[in-house]
């Protein structure tokens, strides 16, 4: 650092052409003649303080001086040691050493050790002396600035909490900061000249060198976060910035890297990510639980409705049985009365004939209602035997053929042949069919076409599920083969808001006297005893469809 060219200019401050005030010179010289000569050569621009010995000189140097002219041969010190002593105590001062002609080599040694210049007594003139003094001051200033600058950068490099290194083009370390040395557990000397392969596992070292090549190849900065395992210690995450090092001509001569521990940050990020995921999962769990709760709630609600309905049914059933018994006796009296009158002369002529016929019709109607009530209240018992639905349907159609003809309803059948047998109570299921056929005819007061259809189908999982609100005491299985009977009419259909009520007891959409309001209630009860389902839907563009689904004989 002490061999800078004499005319170089330091970066720290602009050069000064002339010292602003008189330059203060400490002259340590025991020879009065030489002192006089030097003082004279320096002239008025210099304020010279002279001391004859090293000890006095060292003491005097505590006052501010711009330069020291030091004779190497003094009474209390001789040779290079004179310079060494003084410099060690006042390293901040520029020193020009002086020697005799014989001792020039010692003076050169002093310059090598840090003196700014040397003068040979007897060879100095004004120009030489002044130039030596000015250059010495200037050189010391530049040197100090350089040292400051270096100290600044060094302190930066050494004190930054980052690991810093430099490598040459062959990926050999040329520098490592203290932190990096500590990390490797080596001294700088043990690091410089070596490569990553000397410190890291082969795989990792190869990767580092590949990164170096990449940086040098691209001539660009490279940044990454990588996992780093120090020779001793656990895995860490480091953020790495590598950049190329250029020489004065812009040629890439190596790489430098700076990296620092981001383990805490990465762990925090991972923790955060995990927390996020946990949160998302918790949210999903919560939503699922909520959905489960909703489903349970719905099922409970359905169950509750069923219980209410069942209780209603039971109450109605008991009531119906009571009413039926009470009403049947008076009806029996009227029945006998009508039969009695029919044998009397009054029956043979009008208006007696009409009156008796009307009474007879009214009695039939009343009896029908009571029958329905009894069917409804009768304890649920079915006698299930294998039976052919098509045969039962044909027989049911036959039972209502007069009614159909009177209502101008044409019955068409689309019965699937070779239908497997169903397990049915023939009499009861016929009652269901007759009821559905009669209802269909009633829905077509102007006449129309009634279509009866049978087929077999395999239930999809969707179809096997009980329809919302459906009252089901059992469930079909997905994939189960079931027998479907459809009875379609092209009549008026059922108002959408009333579809849900048609199975309720005593609910009827028919005109007064046309229906008991029990037909479908009883039908449903019968179908349920068969572990089947009955549904009513509207058809597009008009009309309604009754769908009865029953199990096959094999179930």
């Amino acid at each position, binding site marked *: 650092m002490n061999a800078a060219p004499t005319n170089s200019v330091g970066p720290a401050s602009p050069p000064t052409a002339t010292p602003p005030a008189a330059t203060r010179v400490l002259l340590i010289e025991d020879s009065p003649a030489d002192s006089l000569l030097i003082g004279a050569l320096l002239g008025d621009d210099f304020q010279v303080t002279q001391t004859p010995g090293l000890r006095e000189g060292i003491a005097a140097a505590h006052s501010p001086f711009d330069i020291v002219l030091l004779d190497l041969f003094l009474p209390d010190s001789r040779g290079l040691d004179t310079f060494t002593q003084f410099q060690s105590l006042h390293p901040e001062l520029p020193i020009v050493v002086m020697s005799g002609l014989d001792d020039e080599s010692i003076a050169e040694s002093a310059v090598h050790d840090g003196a700014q210049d040397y003068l040979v007594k007897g060879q100095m003139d004004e120009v030489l002396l002044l130039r030596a003094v000015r250059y010495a001051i200037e050189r010391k200033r530049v040197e100090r600035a350089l040292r400051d600058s270096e100290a600044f950068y060094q302190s930066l490099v050494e004190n930054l909490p980052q690991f810093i290194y430099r490598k040459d083009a062959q990926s050999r370390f040329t520098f490592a900061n203290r932190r990096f040395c500590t990390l490797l557990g080596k001294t700088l000397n043990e690091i410089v000249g070596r490569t990553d392969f000397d410190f890291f596992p082969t795989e990792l070292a190869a990767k580092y060198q590949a990164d170096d090549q990449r940086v040098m190849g691209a001539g660009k900065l490279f940044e990454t976060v990588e996992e780093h395992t120090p020779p001793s210690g656990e895995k860490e995450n480091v953020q790495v910035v590598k950049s190329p090092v250029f020489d004065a001509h812009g040629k890439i001569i190596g790489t430098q890297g700076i990296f620092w521990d981001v383990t805490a940050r990465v762990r925090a990020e991972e923790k955060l990510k995990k927390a996020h995921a946990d949160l998302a999962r918790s949210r999903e769990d919560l939503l699922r639980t909520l959905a489960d709760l909703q489903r349970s709630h719905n099922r409970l609600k359905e169950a509750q409705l069923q219980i209410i309905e069942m209780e209603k049914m039971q109450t109605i059933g008991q009531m119906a049985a009571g009413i039926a018994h009470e009403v*049947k006796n008076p009806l*029996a009296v009227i029945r006998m009365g009508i039969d009695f009158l029919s044998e009397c002369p009054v029956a043979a002529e009008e208006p007696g004939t009409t009156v008796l016929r009307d009474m007879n019709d009214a009695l039939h109607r009343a009896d029908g209602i009571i029958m329905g009530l009894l069917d409804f209240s009768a304890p649920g018992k079915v006698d299930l035997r294998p039976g052919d639905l098509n045969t039962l349907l044909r027989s049911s159609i036959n039972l209502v053929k007069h009614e159909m003809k009177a209502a101008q309803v044409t019955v068409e059948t689309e019965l699937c042949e070779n239908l497997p047998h169903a397990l049915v109570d023939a009499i009861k299921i016929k009652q269901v069919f007759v009821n559905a056929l009669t209802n269909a005819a009633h829905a077509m007061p102007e006449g129309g076409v009634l279509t009866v259809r049978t087929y077999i189908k395999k239930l999809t999982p969707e179809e096997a599920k009980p329809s919302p609100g459906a009252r089901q005491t059992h469930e079909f299985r997905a994939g189960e083969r079931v027998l479907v009977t459809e009875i379609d009419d092209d009549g008026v259909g059922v108002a959408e808001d009333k579809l849900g009520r048609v199975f309720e007891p005593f609910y009827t959409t028919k005109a007064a006297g046309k229906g008991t309001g029990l037909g479908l209630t009883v039908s449903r009860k019968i179908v349920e005893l068969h572990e089947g389902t009955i549904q009513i839907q509207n058809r597009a563009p008009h009309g309604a469809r009754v769908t009865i689904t029953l199990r096959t004989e094999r179930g």
Partner: protein
Amino acid sequence: MEPKRILIIDDEPSMTRMIRLTLEMTKRYQVREENQAAHALTTAREFKPDLILLDVIMPGVDGGELARRIKADPVFGQVPVIFLTGTVTKREAAEGAVTAGYPLLPKPVSLKILVETMENAFAAKAHEKDKAAASTKEANGELPKK
């Protein structure tokens, strides 16, 4: 032909009266009404019916129980009984509902059905009598005439 003697036991007087009037109008039956189940057996012993029409449910006495007591009676144990009931449906009746081995007719019953059922019961009784007579003859050897 002598009118058949029919005893009708039912707690409802209007019911028994209507059946009596209707059946008697046919001139083929002579009908006695009894509205008190408790008196039924006494009345039966006195009236000696050819057939009994019996309501199943009456206050105080179970129709089925009464039927068993009638059947167990040494004097008129062989008299056919027809049950009348308000608690059975026509369909159940059509399926041949019987109580204690007797036919069961649901109320309200038409005159036609009632008469048919009674006549069937008489015919069955007559057939049984013939059979019984035949077997008695068999048991006693060839035509033992008194």
